[in-house]
């Protein structure tokens, strides 16, 4: 006899509907799964058998064939366990077919028959078209987000059989949490001194401009970077769903009260491989740190210590806002709308944070700087040198401006950007810049000089212009960009890492000057 139960399987951050067809017929007792199942799915036989026996159901001593349709798409995960169990119960006449009509199943089974949660339930439930989807209780809140009223949570297979056979009412869902547990980001008021770096942080937050801090160890680079997400506006509904989906697919805990609404902050260790940063993997396409930070901040501390190949893998996704990961067994597209913040020491010894304090040889510094490639460096619109604050500032009682105050200005600037049709000024295209960031005569001459001094590239010109637009927005100057706005944008775009060969820069100056 044949039974079909709806379920879903995960590829990347995307759910695919899977129809689990179970056929039980006479013949030598056997069990086979077809339709490109992965290992955890193959092992379903042992789990499902034990679970059925634990629930006082029978394991049919017949020939059992499970087909995962569509058969051409690799399906995987233990989330298909429950669907297989229900299919067997119906196909072996232990359940009436009408009992499972309109029921989708999405849970892993324990040997004792309990329903266990599965990662990525949010995108998975989204693609199951049945009226009711049964999930494990820990998955309920997450699943309920996308399918209002459609999701049922049960504790065990026994409980589920009772509901289906005896028309008992569904058990009450787990209660919603009392309070949210979204991360609380530290406040900017904790930072003493650092007026310039604060300003850079504010511009970066307002315009979503990638930011690079270079400075000696203990200068407060990480402290500043960790306060950046607190300056960013909450995610809108579309972003929130997308970000929650990615986190769900990666098996990350979602906030207890629902979607992720605060911009995420991810700070991978510098040992991260390029796959862990951009996503991929052999068995399943797991989203990388870049995608988990989407909508928020990706902070690369000690950027000079990351593998150069891992850093360079970020370049193209940063430009496109999405990352396409292709592997032999499939491809996945993940969002990558991050605000990238990098922090690094000026040299391996860190002493170059003060004049003449560096003990590194010229070539050691050069090698260190070369670890961040020119094209990646070019993507940082704001690059500032951070110094250690003075003792007076550290011990002073004068607290800096709080995150709340800065946030008010950032939010105002963001709403100006929204009126231009983008989320932030950093996303303005060159054509849009022509329209929304007109240059005064003074601004034009400042830019012309910077271009002729080779201080700026063509790409740099656009970036400076969009940063200048942000600076003007923050100051409340809505008219054309003045010389001062452009000069400030140029000051935020210093060259903290020596580019090119050592000595080449000095030589160039000699031949022209």
């Amino acid at each position, binding site marked *: 006899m044949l039974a079909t139960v709806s379920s879903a399987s995960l590829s990347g951050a995307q759910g695919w509907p899977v129809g689990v067809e179970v056929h039980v017929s006479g013949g030598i007792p056997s069990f086979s799964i077809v339709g490109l199942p992965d290992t955890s799915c193959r092992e379903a036989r042992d789990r499902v058998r034990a679970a059925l026996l634990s629930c006082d159901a029978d394991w049919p001593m017949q020939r059992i064939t499970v087909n995962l349709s569509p058969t051409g798409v690799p399906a995987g995960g233990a989330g298909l366990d429950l669907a297989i169990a229900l299919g067997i119960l119906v196909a072996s006449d232990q359940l009436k077919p009408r009992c499972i009509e309109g029921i989708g199943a999405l849970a892993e089974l324990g040997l004792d028959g309990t329903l266990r949660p599965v990662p990525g339930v949010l995108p998975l439930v989204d693609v199951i078209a049945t009226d009711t989807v049964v999930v494990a209780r820990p998955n309920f809140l997450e699943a309920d987000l996308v399918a209002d009223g459609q999701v049922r949570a049960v504790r065990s297979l026994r409980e589920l059989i009772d509901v289906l056979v005896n028309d008992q009412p569904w058990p009450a869902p787990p209660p919603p949490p009392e309070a949210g547990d979204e991360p609380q980001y530290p406040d900017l008021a904790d930072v003493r001194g650092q007026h310039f770096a604060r300003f850079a942080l504010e511009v970066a937050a307002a315009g979503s401009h990638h930011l690079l801090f270079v400075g000696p160890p203990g200068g407060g680079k990480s402290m500043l970077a960790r306060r950046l997400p607190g300056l960013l506006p909450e995610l809108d509904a579309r972003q929130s769903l997308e970000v929650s989906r990615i986190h769900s697919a990666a098996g990350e805990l979602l906030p207890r009260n629902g979607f992720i609404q605060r911009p995420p902050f991810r700070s991978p260790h510098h040992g991260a491989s390029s796959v862990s940063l951009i996503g991929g993997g052999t068995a399943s396409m797991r989203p990388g740190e870049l995608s988990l930070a989407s909508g928020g901040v990706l902070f690369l501390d000690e950027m000079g210590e990351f593998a150069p190949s891992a850093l360079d893998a970020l370049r193209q996704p940063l430009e496109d806002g999405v990352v396409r990961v292709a592997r032999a067994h499939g491809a996945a597209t993940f969002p990558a709308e991050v605000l990238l913040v990098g922090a690094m020491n000026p040299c391996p010894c860190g002493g170059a944070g003060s004049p003449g304090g560096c003990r590194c040889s010229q070539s050691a510094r050069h090698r260190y700087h070369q670890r961040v490639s020119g094209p990646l460096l070019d993507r940082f619109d704001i690059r500032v040198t951070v110094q250690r604050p003075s003792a007076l500032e550290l011990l002073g009682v004068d607290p800096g401006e709080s995150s709340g105050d800065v946030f008010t200005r950032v939010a105002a600037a963001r709403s100006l950007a929204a009126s231009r049709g983008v989320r932030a000024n950093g996303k303005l295209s060159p054509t849009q810049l022509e329209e929304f960031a007109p240059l005064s005569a003074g601004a034009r001459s400042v830019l012309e000089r910077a271009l002729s001094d080779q201080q700026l590239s063509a790409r740099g010109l656009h970036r400076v212009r969009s940063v200048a637009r942000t600076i003007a927005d923050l100051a409340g100057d809505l008219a054309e960009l003045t010389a*001062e706005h452009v000069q*400030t944008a140029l000051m935020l775009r210093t060259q903290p890492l020596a580019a090119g060969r050592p000595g080449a820069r000095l030589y160039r100056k000699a031949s022209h000057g």
Partner: protein
Amino acid sequence: MDSRSTEKRNPDEQNVALPTAAWLAALAALAGAGPRRLRVLLADRQPRAAWELVMRGGTKGQAHALGRGGAEMLSRWAADAQEFDVAAFWDDTMQRGIGAFWFGSAAFPEALVHDPEPPAILFHRGDPDVIAGPRVAIVGTRKCTRYGHDIARAFARDLSLAGVGVVSGLALGIDAAAHHGAIDSGGAPPIAVVANGLDSVYPASNRLLWEDVARTGVVLSEGPIGTQPERWRFPARNRIVAALSDVVLVVESHVRGGSMHTVAEAERRGVPVMAVPGPIHSPSAEGTNALLRDGCAPACGVDDVLIELGLTAAAQRSSSELRLEPGGLAGDVLATMGWQPAAAEQLLVGVRCSPAELAGALDVLRSTGWVIESEGWFERVARGESSCDH
């Protein structure tokens, strides 16, 4: 027809026509043949005779004079020398535009003739006639600060303008700054003494500068083509720098380092040494400050050096030094900056202005050449009328 006759020619016949320099070049190309060992090989012998003796394995006296391992060295050299084509080597040298003068030749620089350790042969690229007139060596650390770099460059520029040849070692840091200054001025041609063969550039990043020195002045080396910059060659090079100069000026130096070796060589030869005072906290000025403490003459301006040379103080000033310092906010920024590199944060706090105001002032200072931005730091590079170097 021609090629056949060349093949048939007896190598010895061909070698008869070779100049003394060719034999000396071959001797200098022997592995590990430094100035001292060359003197042993050349004692009381003409270069050709010395070469032929090496081919035969040298003498017992030579083995003794070469010190420990002398006999093995001679037998290794004999094996190498038998394989060595002196004529082809000399041809190669000539084809690369490299010339040579040797101890005893008419062109040999006079300053080296009476030297306690004169080089047996000196290869040159560029115009060797520029080694005339007063010369000052400007030496210092490879890891110089902006302060040292600017001073080396300014001194070299003004000395060159006053007709003084600037001698240095074409290394990174102070050496490079000194050569840059001399080339920029268009005054007396620069003179460089390097440790490696003249067919290659070391350090490679100095290639453009190297070529400029060879074009406008002269690059000298004791080593023939193919010589690698082995460690021991640098002290040997420093002795030539000291020997060629009338004054050795140390701009910035750590307590230990090549420039201190140059100073020692200068003192051996009675060449006056001068040092530029540096900040007492700066590790890169510890060497120069120690020299001053030990009684070395301070060089606080080009005129000090010119007077030491017995010339009248007549250094020309570049136009930037005659400018009035800017006023207003830009002036405040310059004053806050002083002569140390400053980050934007420091200036913001020191001047007490908004980022936008600071950006305006810095842009003005940068576009008018008062300040440059380097690795994220803003540094003052030009002097104005209200400040004076001495």
